[in-house]
Structure formats: structure tokens, C-alpha cells
């Protein structure tokens, strides 16, 4: 087992941006890089010419690309065909659904949400991943000849550039079976987000730090007085304090206000996914180490409810 296998994903525009990032991560390991795509018709995948790819293979994968048991089978087939030391898949929900299961079933090693990767002279793989709410980086050493399945986080590596020279597509293997023990019976477009919130120019975001019913009531008054929109982090929605349509983040609304003021929000990756396009982020958080300050333009460490008191009273 020697090379690095990158599982590429195809979206409307061809190979996805996240896949090009994986190629960069793979190239940094200094071993031969095989980029593999699963597709109903691998020959129809438009030319791929990313720098650093030694081989491009396509596996016929019929049916629903989101059916995770089919994806799992496809990735397993690609691993068996190429015998890599390291397999890279993007850390996203579709891959998280099966990657660790595949690793356990086949006794591969596994690490997810990785933000750094390198190989040691002795062949071991070293990866870094965040933990403890983003406050700590953990460096892990994986002692395994491979394959090791590693899921790098999207948006960390710079996508590989094009070399101007398309790599020829080699179709490999037989079409994988479409069987799945998990059968989709419906897909609901849950009309998730509040359209007004998505368009709002000023949003006050409320988090667990102000997560008491009486706190929410105070902010509702403030929002009315100042004419700003209110949104919340997931935990407040989960406990029923705030309507589901007002949840901001990866599984909620994406907002793009000119001003986002976060009250008592720690800045989890899933929340930040929904506010990263804000023009200005103002964080009110008593914990100086809270990761939200990484992305904030303005900040304060005073108690959010003290601030709220003053936001109310001077009218």
C-alpha cells in the first residue's frame, strides 16, 4: 500500500471545489495521487486537469449518489482496486454517514475533520483536528500501513490548480450494486429558513449564553425597539425557546447582514457556516477564548445580559 486515493465528488460545475482541496492535501503527502470519481457514466465527466494527479479513475455508480450504502460500496471498491496507504474524502454529512463504518468493517484506520496532514519518515500519518469546541488542536499519529481513511475539513486547503493538461479517464471495475438497506421514501424541501431573516440588514443572534426564557423576552423587546431581526443558535431552537425558522447555521438559515451581533454564542463551526457572509460580526461573549472571536470584527467580554439592560433602557 503506497499511494494516496482521493475520492472526488462531481457537482453541477464538474469536480467540486472541496475535491480540488483534497487533491492539494494529497499532493502534500508526496506519494502518487489517484483521483477517483464515482458516476453513473464516468466517461461523461468533463476533463480534469488538476496539478499533481498521477492517475484519474472512474467507477460506474448507478442510482442515487446520496444513498450512503451505495457510496460506501463504491469507495470500498475503489480502495480494493487501488490499495492506497491513505484515502481522502471530504468531511461532509454524506461521507460521515458511512466512512467510519467502512473503516471499522474493514479494519482500516480512521480520522475525521482533519485540518493538517503529513507523513512521517517512518511511514506513519500525522493529522491535526480541532476538539473541545474548537479550543484545542489535537495532533494524532496513525501507525498503520493503511489504508487509513481520513476526512479533511472543507475550506482549509487551497484547491489544486489546473495544469492545462487533462488527465485521461480510466474506467475501472464493474458497476456497483444499487442495493441499500436504507430506502429513501421521500425528500422534503422543508422550506427551512425565514426569508425575512435571510434578507435582514441587522441581526441579533442569541445563543446558549442568553438561553433563558426571560432573556429571550428581553431581546424580543430590544429587537422591536431597534427594528432589528432576531435569530438564534441551534440549542435555543432545540429547547423550543426560538422558532425553528430562526435557526442560523449549517442546518438552518444562511444570513448575510451588514451587522451581526452575537450574544452568548461560542462560534461552533456549524453556526459560523451560517454567518460567514456577514459584513460585520460583533461578538458579546464572557469567555475570552471563545472561537467566535476568531471571526469577529468587534468584540467585548462583558456579560450579554448587562449589555441588554442598557440596550433597552435608554429609549
Amino acid at each position, binding site marked *: 500500500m503506497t499511494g494516496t486515493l482521493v475520492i472526488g465528488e462531481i457537482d453541477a460545475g464538474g469536480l467540486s471545489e472541496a475535491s480540488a482541496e483534497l487533491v492539494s492535501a494529497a499532493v502534500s503527502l508526496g506519494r502518487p495521487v489517484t483521483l477517483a470519481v464515482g458516476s453513473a457514466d464516468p466517461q461523461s465527466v468533463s476533463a480534469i486537469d488538476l496539478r499533481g494527479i498521477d492517475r484519474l479513475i472512474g467507477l460506474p455508480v448507478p442510482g442515487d449518489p446520496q444513498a450512503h450504502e451505495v457510496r460506501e460500496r463504491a469507495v470500498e471498491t475503489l480502495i480494493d482496486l487501488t490499495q492506497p496507504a491513505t484515502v481522502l474524502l471530504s468531511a461532509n454529512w454524506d461521507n*460521515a*454517514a458511512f466512512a467510519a463504518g467502512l473503516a*471499522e468493517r474493514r479494519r482500516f484506520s480512521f*480520522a475525521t475533520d482533519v485540518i493538517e496532514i503529513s507523513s512521517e519518515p517512518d511511514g506513519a500519518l500525522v493529522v491535526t483536528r480541532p476538539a473541545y469546541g474548537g479550543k484545542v488542536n489535537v*495532533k494524532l499519529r496513525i501507525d498503520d500501513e493503511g489504508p487509513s481513511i481520513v476526512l479533511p475539513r472543507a475550506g482549509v486547503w487551497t484547491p489544486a490548480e489546473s495544469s492545462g493538461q487533462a488527465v485521461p479517464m480510466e474506467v475501472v471495475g464493474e458497476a456497483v450494486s444499487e442495493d441499500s*438497506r*436504507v430506502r429513501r421514501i421521500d425528500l422534503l424541501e422543508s422550506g427551512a429558513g425565514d426569508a425575512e431573516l435571510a434578507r435582514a440588514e*441587522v441581526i441579533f443572534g442569541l445563543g446558549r449564553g442568553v438561553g433563558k426564557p426571560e432573556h429571550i423576552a428581553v431581546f424580543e423587546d430590544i429587537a422591536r425597539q431597534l427594528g432589528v431581526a432576531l435569530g438564534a443558535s441551534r440549542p435555543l431552537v432545540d429547547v423550543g425557546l426560538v422558532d425553528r425558522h430562526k435557526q442560523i447555521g449549517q442546518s438552518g438559515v444562511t444570513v448575510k447582514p451588514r451587522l451581526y451581533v452575537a450574544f452568548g454564542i461560542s462560534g461552533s463551526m456549524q453556526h459560523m457556516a451560517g454567518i460567514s457572509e456577514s459584513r460585520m460580526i*460583533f461578538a458579546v461573549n464572557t469567555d475570552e477564548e471563545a472561537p467566535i472571536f476568531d471571526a469577529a470584527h*468587534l468584540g467585548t467580554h462583558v456579560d450579554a445580559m448587562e449589555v441588554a439592560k442598557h440596550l433597552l433602557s435608554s429609549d
Partner: protein
Amino acid sequence: MKIVVCIKQVMVLPGAVVLDGEGTGIDPLFVTRRLNDPDRYAVEEAIRLCEEHGGGEVVVVSVGGAEADKELRKCLAMGAQRAVRVADDGLQLFDPLVVARALALVARREAADLVLCGVQSEDAAQQATGPALAGALAYPCVSMATKVEFEPDTRQLVVHKEASGGRTEVVQVDLPAVLTVQTGINTPRTESFKAVMMAKRAQIEVTEPEDLPPSTIQVQSMSAHAPSRGQLQLIEGDPAEVAARIRELVQEVSQ
């Protein structure tokens, strides 16, 4: 229905990061321990399913040291019937496969019809232990469940799950299966005082994780996340001044 729920005691860092002497862990003095939030929802869902379908048994399982008993007792007070702890003995916090193997020992022994995990642990945040456990048990897996219905005639579950793009996927799966439960799926009950007192005295079965293949993963080092605060401007002043600044900004932007 016999339901095994995997619950974890997570470590939360309320303030600054203080590492232990070796730099491979967090100093326990600076850590708060609590039941992983998604796991509370998983326990509630298991109790609800049993209640609505004529009984059964909810067994909560945790891989950890004796300090995790506190969380197992909390689940007993919520209404789980039994608690099992797989004694940690250096099991890897950052190798979900090893944890899944230890959990699989218990799930197999209990002949569980359904195994529930939380969607992710608040400290390790891997979203991997549930799928890994499904792999270990050779059960199908549905992750990020937001609604679960049991159809007794066919012994199938219909599960709503969060899908990308804000959509909800509805799937059908035969038992036995593993689900990972998303927060907000239900309203976890608060334990009664009496139940808490009873749970204090309850027996927690402790088993050893025997003959498990060892982990290939080792923590080499930990470091406090180096903040990238280049653009951050701290507002000096007391809450009144901060509030005034926020008002100013709101007015500027709203013009």
C-alpha cells in the same frame, strides 16, 4: 423492543485551555463534565419508543471511567432500565473505531433491536461513533435522525433525517439498526427527585473491554488553538458603553 443507547460524558472547557503535564490531554481541574447533549435526546427517544410500543427495555451504555457513572445514573433517573459501563482502561478518546468496538460488545450481548447514538460528541465532535458501531455490528445506519416512527407489523422504522441543503430525507430501514439522533428531536424529560434518589442506589454493571483489537491512533500532542484575532477590535468600556456602541452601529447600518 430492546434499545441500547450509547451515552458519553463529555468534557467542556469553560475558559482558557490548560493542558496536562505531558501536553497530550486537558488538565482535569479545568474541565466541566456533563452528559453529551445529543445523547439526552437519544435517551428520551428510546424511552418514548418503548412507552409507545408496549414496553421493552432501554439499556444505557457508556465507555469511560468511573466518573461517567454520574451520567449513566442521570439516564436511569430519566427512565432507562439498566446501565452498563465499559471500563475505559486507556481507550482512545480520538479513535471512534475503538469506542465503537467496545460499545458493540454490549449491543451484541444485549441483542439490541435498535441502537441509538447522539449525532456527535461535544468534545471530540467526530460524528463517527454511530456509523462505526453500525459497521462493527453489520447493522444499517441512519444518521441525524429528527423523527423516528416504529411500524410494529413490519418491524421497520421510518426515519426523518437532516440532509444537506436544508432538506429532510425520509427513509425506511429494517431492524436491527443504528441511528444517530439529532438534538431537538423531542423534549427530554426532567428527572423527578424520587427517580434521582433511586438512580443513586442503582447498580451499574461494569464490564471489561476484552480482546479488542488495539487502536492504531495515539495522541501525539495537544495545543491551545492559536486564535487568529487579526481583525478583532475589542470595545473597551462597561456594558453601558458597549450598548451605546451597538446602538450606533445599528443606526449607521440602518440608514
